[in-house]
């Protein structure tokens, strides 16, 4: 028996849609900036460039969320965590009996909590891209399945 949990952040914008959106907004505002430039008022153009750079970086930053996914596979004996990001894929494995789930409070309230799977001095973060409540809900679910140190609760979840 095994349980697989796929974690991915919510992104309502696809990459092609983002491209179309960005190009259209760039194109429209470039027409405005070029009209001013053609009349000799070129200082509008660098401000247009800076603004589009800002918008592009903001979109990129928000879209990069979708590349970041995690898969948790919990079997009778093992907990494995596969983390995928732009930089590739990393896999961690823990003996289920000796693994524990820990929800760490942030040092400052404005920052999110951190959900960790820890075992034998190793510690890996799960679901850092989730909302606070989702992370708490996931922590609750994982705690029931992985348990604390020296525990192997049954792999069932309501």
């Amino acid at each position, binding site marked *: 028996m095994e349980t697989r*949990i796929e974690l991915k952040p919510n992104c309502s914008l696809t990459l092609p849609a983002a491209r179309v959106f960005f190009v259209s*907004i760039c194109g429209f505002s470039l027409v405005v900036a070029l009209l*001013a430039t053609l009349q000799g008022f070129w200082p*509008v153009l660098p401000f247009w460039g800076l*603004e589009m750079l800002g918008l592009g970086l903001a979109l990129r*930053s928000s879209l990069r969320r979708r590349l970041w996914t995690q898969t948790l596979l919990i079997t009778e004996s093992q907990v494995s965590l596969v983390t995928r990001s732009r930089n590739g894929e990393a896999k961690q494995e823990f003996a289920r009996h000796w693994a*524990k789930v820990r929800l760490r409070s942030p040092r400052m*309230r404005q*920052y999110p909590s951190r959900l960790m799977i820890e075992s034998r001095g190793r510690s890996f973060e799960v679901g850092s891209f989730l909302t606070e409540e989702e992370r708490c809900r996931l*922590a609750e679910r994982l705690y029931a399945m992985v348990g604390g140190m020296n525990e192997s609760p049954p792999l069932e979840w309501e």
Partner: protein
Amino acid sequence: MAQATDTLPHDDHHDQPDTGIKRWLFATNHKDIGTMYLVFSLIMFFVGGAMAMVIRAELFKPGLQLVDPMFFNQMTTLHALVMIFGAVMPAFVGLANWMIPLQIGAPDMALPRMNNFSFWILPFAFTLLLSTLLVPGGAPAGGWTLYPPLVLQGGDYFPMVIFAIHLMGISSIMGAINVIVTIMNMRAPGMDLLRMPLFCWSWLITAYLLIAVMPVLAGAVTMLLTDHFFKTSFFNAAGGGDPVMFEHIFWFFGHPEVYIMILPAFGIISEILPTFSRKPLFGAVSMVYATASIAFLSFIVWGHHMFVDGMPLAAQMFFMMSTMLIAVPTGVKVFNWTATMWRGSLSFEPPMLFAIAFLFMFSIGGFSGVMLALVPADFQYQNTYFVVAHFHYVLVPGAIFAIMAAVYYWLPKWTGHMYNLTLAKTHFWLSTIFVNVLFFPQHFLGLAGMPRRVPDYAVQFSDWNMVSSIGAFGFGLSQVLFAIVVIQCIRGGQKASSVVWGDALPTGLEWTLSSPPPYHSFITAPEIK
């Protein structure tokens, strides 16, 4: 959730924000930042309002009574800059911060740290702007439009004002980018664009306008700066430049800016009227298209601000026609709002009262706008109090009444308390009566030929000026009631339910959350399989 997580081995995780200054200084939560924007906006509303009181006190009777003409002109200029960039725009950004994530089912804004930064720029920008009152030569006095060469002939205020405007622009752009990215990428599964609430739609289009026109403003004021300090001649006729081109550039920014201040108001009214009419919004999709049409048209009407500058007849005709064309999508909106109320089961809580007042009085501003769009008529009206009456009808009972409607609509949701309805209704009636006493006579003054931006006037204008000033003092004092209602509601009161408005049954995701909503909002959005 709290019960379940209590069983977890975590260190005192809690669901309450930090207290004290750190909570606000380092805030990344959209609700905290929204609150800061709204409080800032209220403070600026009173600062700008105090300047308006100085103006109206001076105009109470002919002759110079209280302030010298230079200070009077500084007050008119600062009043406009403070009200536009300090009161109205931050209020809408605050409402966007509070409501967009709640309405689209997102946990927060897409870029929370940038959100924090975009707010905290504002107090510095306005400290800089208002501190020009203390420098040699005083504050800017050439009007908020900063026309050269007048603005270049001022005192030490000049670089401070330009820098303050740049800061306000940066803040607005960051806010707009955040709104766009949040709406585009953070909508909950199933929330497609046409299902999105109209407040979000109107803000998406507003953000698009901001993105398109802010570089133009930044470029224009930078060129003023280089003309002043680096001897360039963008707008200097002696060096081959053209000061009239500044007007073109400024109003290419300025007219969309007017819509930046009214489109979110349209969104708010489209949320409130269906709730208290107990009917769905009539023609919701056409409202989106109408908003987009108004936004598009706002780019091709700037010339109507400068009919008397001298322009070819064809250009006058183009700008006149394109301006009048805006009445079509605006008419669609007014028709749809009226049709929403038609045979609805209406109730008249404070948000609804403000929304209905908006509908009537914004239409008055719209009608006088159509009058001003007519070239031959504009030749008569330009630079008179008729223009002042027109844009104040659009911005005060238009934009500001919509902001007040929004605050009264969502305040119980934000605080968890119901406010004093009697006091709020009193605030509404006093505001509505006095705003008309204040601005309606200005139509008569303008038609009789009283010029704007003057501290003294001919005696035949005395009576209506006195009436207008009485209206101003009454309207100003009435706003103290607004502050009292809000502060009382924040401090306590009858508990509000999650739906707040009882049998009015507002639609929208925000009403599925408790009142007040939890510090971190949604527990559903991402797919966890």
